[in-house]
């Protein structure tokens, strides 16, 4: 007895091709090899370069000629920085958090711009849909909160407080120490990276399912053709939903980084 749960995608005839991980692989525009490492310049790389240039140019233009009554560009840059500085750095970490505001703001702007590529026509994919970028950002945040904590408390007290939570009966350490070790030092960076990656990955797949669904339904030769319209409307709806998710994920990444920094700086974390 064989139970077929779903047909494998693309059985050879012109059936519906479900999007999969192949949809995230792009043909390299330039490739070379150096020190046995295979380098590729793909659409993703180009998008990251454009985002960085865009951010530098826009932010420099916004603050080059600052006025007391800000114009539109300066006002936007100031409100983004103000959001991160006042609502994240200061509210979550406290007064000490102000020195992290530039890093948090940079992180927020970078993730926001790279995320938003996911819904910009022609680009239509976020560089964060490749695990490398979120993973690297998460590693930076992980190194940062650990180094900040070690510098503030000293390595012994910092790791001691993480592993042996103060004010807990000694017997509980059998249970708490492994949990605290895993959750603070291992799971934190992984969830930080996977959350951003998986959101962008899932978002791209969702949009693909409905756009490919629309084109497929238009190509069938029976009355199912009429379902192409709802599918197309879902694409538009999901684009707006994606915009919301992209902004939210940039915010969440920065908020979590700030909350980890706050934990590392707190007297008893």
């Amino acid at each position, binding site marked *: 007895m064989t*139970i077929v749960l779903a047909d494998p995608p693309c059985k050879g005839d012109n059936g519906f091709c479900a999007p999969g*991980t192949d949809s995230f692989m792009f043909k390299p525009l330039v490739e070379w090899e150096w020190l046995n490492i295979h380098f590729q310049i793909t659409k993703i790389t180009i998008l990251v370069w454009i985002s960085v240039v865009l951010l530098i140019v826009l932010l420099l233009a916004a603050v080059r000629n600052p006025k007391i009554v800000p114009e539109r560009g300066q006002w936007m840059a100031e409100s983004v920085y103000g959001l991160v500085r006042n609502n*994240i750095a200061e509210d979550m970490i406290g007064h000490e958090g102000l020195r992290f505001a530039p890093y948090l703001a940079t992180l927020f702007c970078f993730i926001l711009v790279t995320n938003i590529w996911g819904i910009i026509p022609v680009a239509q994919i976020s560089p964060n849909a490749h695990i490398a970028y979120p993973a690297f950002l998460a590693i930076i945040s992980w190194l940062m909160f650990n180094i900040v904590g070690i510098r503030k408390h000293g390595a012994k007290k910092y790791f001691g407080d993480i592993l042996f939570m103060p004010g807990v009966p000694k017997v509980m350490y059998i249970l708490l120490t492994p949990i605290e070790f895993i959750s603070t030092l291992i799971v934190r960076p992984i969830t930080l990276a996977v*959350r951003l990656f*998986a959101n962008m990955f*899932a978002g791209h797949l969702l949009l693909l399912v409905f756009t490919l669904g629309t084109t497929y339904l238009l190509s069938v030769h029976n009355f199912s053709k009429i379902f192409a319209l709802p599918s197309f409307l879902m694409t538009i709806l999901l684009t707006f939903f994606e915009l919301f998710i992209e902004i939210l994920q940039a915010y*969440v990444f920065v908020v*979590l980084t700030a909350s980890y920094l706050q934990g590392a700086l707190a007297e008893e974390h």
Partner: protein
Amino acid sequence: MSTLAEVTGQLGTIGYGLAAIGPGVGIGLIFAAYINSSARQPESANFTRTWMLVGFAIIEALALFGLVLAFALK
């Protein structure tokens, strides 16, 4: 040995469905708690919003692990 029963196709889809149950309940609880608290004490809404989003993000990560694994372990 002959095969008695076999399941083919994308089992990851079912796995993701199962993995989404817990986070689904969790996200419901998070937003219910936020709505409750801001209805009882509207002035606390600004303060609790950040923590609602942090909690939401932490729970959501569980569902997304399932999604990623559904693709990774094909």
